């Protein structure tokens, strides 16, 4: 690209590219930090529900006992939020790599972001509204 072409770039293209670069740098950093936190959250969660307890014992009353302590509600909510953000951002990388058609890519991203937001709301409602005072 010649200097002339560069200076003739449409107005606004430089700030755009710059904000995109800033976003990608932030995204790169977020993946490392959230990954580090998820390393502990996800492995502790899996160990508690599959290794130290058998999965068949993780019934409603098991959750009720655990969620009686707000610490575990916060723990599980963090796992939900960071897991979805880290996972959806990872899926975004995959779509950028393999879906080359811009319209298809935009459509797929719209669907996956909507799904992530919907599941985040569903998960948050579950964690906040669960009372656990059922018999059995």
């Amino acid at each position, binding site marked *: 690209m010649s200097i002339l072409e560069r200076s003739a770039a449409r107005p606004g293209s430089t700030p755009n590219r710059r904000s995109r670069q800033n976003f990608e740098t932030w995204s790169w950093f977020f993946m*490392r930090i959230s*990954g*580090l936190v*998820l*390393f502990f959250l*996800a*492995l502790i969660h*899996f160990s508690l529900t*599959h*290794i130290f*307890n*058998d*999965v*068949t*014992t*993780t*019934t*409603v009353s098991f*959750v009720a006992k655990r969620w009686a302590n707000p610490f575990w509600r916060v723990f599980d909510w963090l796992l*939900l939020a960071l*897991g*979805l953000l880290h*996972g*959806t951002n*990872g*899926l975004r990388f*995959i779509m950028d790599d393999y879906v080359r058609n811009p319209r298809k890519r935009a459509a797929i991203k719209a669907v996956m972001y909507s*799904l992530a937001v919907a*599941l985040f709301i*569903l*998960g948050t*409602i*579950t964690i906040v*509204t*669960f009372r*656990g005072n*059922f018999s*059995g």
Partner: protein
Amino acid sequence: MSPESTVYKGKTGQWAFVLHRITGFLVLMFILLHIVDVSMLNFPRIYNEIHALYGNVLMRLFEVGLLFGLVYHALNGLRVIMIDFFPGSIKNEKSVFYGIFSLTILLTIVGGVIILRPFFTGSVH
């Protein structure tokens, strides 16, 4: 992108990357399913019925697969962080990959025995 900027040349780094992607994708798919099944908590009967399915041998095998994916993705993620934040460490990249892969296999076998045992002995710990 210039050719010099390509780090992967079809060796361990390439396989580590491919496996990181596949395991990340599969773990995410499980998370999506898991958020939906946990949302049944306010309908205890349905929740308990769904969770009873997790004790089925096929689901237990699936959980061992999930353990493999989770442990590999977690350990390889640390390897990626190591390379990114300590660029000098890239010369050990290969042995670190073999290390974390062996550890993944070991933890999957140990965890796999614990996860599958109740199905064969019929007892739940």
